[in-house]
């Protein structure tokens, strides 16, 4: 079996994702962690492109990479020194956590690999913006207007919540 470009791309993205995922959760410098996270998220967007989900890839880049990571970096700047290095994780904690994670990963992966997913019988659909738009505002089956509205309530509530929590004391002057 020859190695296709896609396979190479996949290998690349996967490698980035895996390596930087691990680095994100192990590095002792917080800003680096944020950067690594960004890399992971971007490579994930790459995967989405490979899957032909351009819209999702775009959302991933803008919302995740652009929004959340920036938010995180801001808060890091608010709460930490950039050069701050964490103390090493206590070995017991690291050991047991690693054990749990690895065991979990092995368990999940073996289970997944054992399982025979039903092969697809459906024709692939070209996903264009129009379809996405229609679906998002559709009211029938596979229409997502209700979630769309609900998430707007959610965002509103989250916003209010964030404000309530983060609001400073009124100065009593």
């Amino acid at each position, binding site marked *: 079996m020859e190695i*296709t470009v*896609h396979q190479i791309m*996949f290998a690349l993205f*996967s490698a980035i*994702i*895996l390596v930087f*995922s691990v680095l*994100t*959760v*192990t590095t002792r410098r*917080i800003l680096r962690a944020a950067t690594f*996270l960004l890399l*992971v*998220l971007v490579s*994930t967007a790459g*995967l989405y*492109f*490979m*899957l*032909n*989900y351009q819209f999702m890839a775009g*959302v991933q880049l803008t*919302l*995740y990479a652009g*929004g*959340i990571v920036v*938010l995180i970096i801001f*808060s890091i700047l*608010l*709460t930490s020194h950039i050069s701050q290095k*964490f103390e090493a*994780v206590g070995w017991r*904690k*690291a050991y*047991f*956590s*690693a054990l749990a994670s690895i065991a979990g*990963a092995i368990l*999940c*992966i073996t289970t*997944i*690999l054992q399982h025979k997913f039903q092969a*697809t019988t*459906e*024709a*692939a*659909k070209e*996903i264009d913006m129009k379809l*996405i738009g229609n*679906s998002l505002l559709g009211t029938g089956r596979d229409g*997502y207007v209700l979630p769309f509205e609900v*998430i707007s309530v*959610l*965002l509103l509530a*989250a*916003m209010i*919540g*964030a404000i309530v*929590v*983060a609001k400073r004391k009124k100065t009593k002057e």
Partner: protein
Amino acid sequence: MLNAGIPMEAFLVVSTLMFFAGVYGFLTRRNLITILMSVELILNSVNINFLVFNRFLFPDKLQGHFFSLFIIAIAAAEAAVAIAIIINIYRHFNTINVENVDKMKY
């Protein structure tokens, strides 16, 4: 298909590993913000799952696709509130080390 020749399971393995990397991070990181980052990793891996399934197995409906879309939105909202609280914590505790946030126990 752009993904020709790549088995679906490979994606799933990657996402699962990412998932558990996130879990590991959640379990070990000291800084509340890095914990939040770990959560993002977890959610991200789930997103990959949804999209992969959608693409490989059920391409004619966009259920997985939209699911991950909403997950991203929610992740954002969650992050916003979480960060607000973290900042609040920082004000009270003057640290955001998770191990110090244990005033209530037993």
